[in-house]
């Protein structure tokens, strides 16, 4: 086992010990198909939670998006995001000649799955903020990639904004049925529908 693999296993174990990291799959079984998972965003812990809730063979091909300036600022952060998570780096400063979605498109062309948080920023509580347009553009460009909504529950109690040490509280990730972009669907309408699909998972019961 290589060092990044061992590190990944350790991180996943810690995440499970602290949050349980239970994944519930409704409408789409956990399969190794190319997918874009999109979820509500409340805490830095969100990505680790989704990642730990995935079966281990899906973890290797599912990549997070990381802000380049923050996650490459120290050697450790860079190592964790590059070696363990295989993150897709994006820059937050927009330059004229560069499409901010280009690194994501690149990863999708390679056949990788992505996890994105379309709110763009961490929300406080209650309903997620309106979704940003990136999800729509990706859905438009990659029609055959499944879009899976996911609701992350309880994680804001594990690590509220501004705290560093997580408290052990059980969390769950509920994955829903795939969403597809309708022909000629309006951008705003699609994003609202995607947001509703995420919020609908909040109350799913078996």
């Amino acid at each position, binding site marked *: 086992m290589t060092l990044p693999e061992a590190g990944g296993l350790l991180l996943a174990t810690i995440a499970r010990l602290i949050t349980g990291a239970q994944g519930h799959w409704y409408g789409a079984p956990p399969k190794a198909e190319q997918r874009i998972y999109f979820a509500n965003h409340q805490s830095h812990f969100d990505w680790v939670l989704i990642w730990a809730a995935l079966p281990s063979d899906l973890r290797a091909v599912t990549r997070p998006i990381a802000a380049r300036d923050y996650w490459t600022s120290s050697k450790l952060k860079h190592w964790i995001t590059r070696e363990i998570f295989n993150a897709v780096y994006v820059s937050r400063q927009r330059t004229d000649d560069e499409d901010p979605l280009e690194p994501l498109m690149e990863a999708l062309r390679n056949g990788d799955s992505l996890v994105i948080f379309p709110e763009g920023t961490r929300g406080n509580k209650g309903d997620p903020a309106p979704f940003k347009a990136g999800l729509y553009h990706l859905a438009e460009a990659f029609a055959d990639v499944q879009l899976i909504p996911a609701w992350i529950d309880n994680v804001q109690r594990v690590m509220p904004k501004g705290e560093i040490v997580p*408290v052990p509280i059980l969390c769950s990730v509920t994955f829903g049925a795939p969403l597809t972009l309708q022909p000629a669907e309006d951008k705003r309408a699609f994003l609202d529908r995607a947001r509703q699909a995420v919020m609908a998972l909040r109350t799913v019961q078996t």
Partner: protein
Amino acid sequence: MGALRNLSVSQQIGLLFVALFGLLVIVTAIAFSRTLRDRNDEQLVAHEQFKRDLRAVWIGAVLFWVAWIAGGFVSTLLFGIVSFLALREFVTLTHTVRGDHRSLLLAFFAVLPLQYVIVATEHFDVFSVFIPVYVFLAIPVISALGNDPKRFLERTAKIQWGIMVCVYGMSHAPALLLLDLPDYRDRGAFLVLYLVLVVAIAQIAQESASRRLRRRPAARAISRSFSWRAWGLGVLAAGFVGTALYWATPFKPIPALVAALVAGGSGTLGEFVMKGIKRDAGVRSWGGKASVTGAVGLLDRVAPLCFAAPVFFHSVRWYFGL
């Protein structure tokens, strides 16, 4: 029974484990053979429930076996881990807010390990007062520093309760391992097994009695199944099994009966109290399908032990004048 009493400690305990695992194998085989028949949905649901319970008993039995082989330190560690998981589940279902973050950190990462370190190092004078005295003050102080007066008493009380049940109560089980009983050195492991077994018997007997008897519940809004007669039958069953096992305990038959009655009675009453807490939190079953947070139902299984262990522990200490 007298011949059994003359066996060496490891022979006695070995015998008990052989009996326990033999029984489990038989029950599992019967349960498996019954899956081959056609059944309706209701029976299938009941069978799934039974399978889950059976799996829990298997895991518990294997854990005890490992703990017995590995000795006092590992047993204490195992109980510490169970304590952690139970507290995690308890906290999940009480609505804590941001201001509680620091006190929860204190509970999980300072109070819990410290309590088990105190148990492992056999500081019994500190062990009984550490949480009720020192932590009782420390938690609300940290909570108050969280600077949020909204529902302060309620939030703090819930954290205190979680610690009392999941950490303080639970830690009395491994503490039995280390009690220095007359003519009973190194047999503490059996005393723990005795406690767990008796509590489990009381619980199972009460459950099946309430299903058969269908008596009027003592408090319908809390629990539909808890009636005084079913409770009494559960406690009696515990007493019966406890007396039958007296030869491996430090007790004579009559005190063994009383000890089993006390442990079984307090365990099932503790479970009743836990049902009240669950109702308050709005969940019917701690685990399984009822909760989105995916609690695994561990608390359900260990709650009776958490309530019975301190009562049993102090009864034993008082009886032997330790």
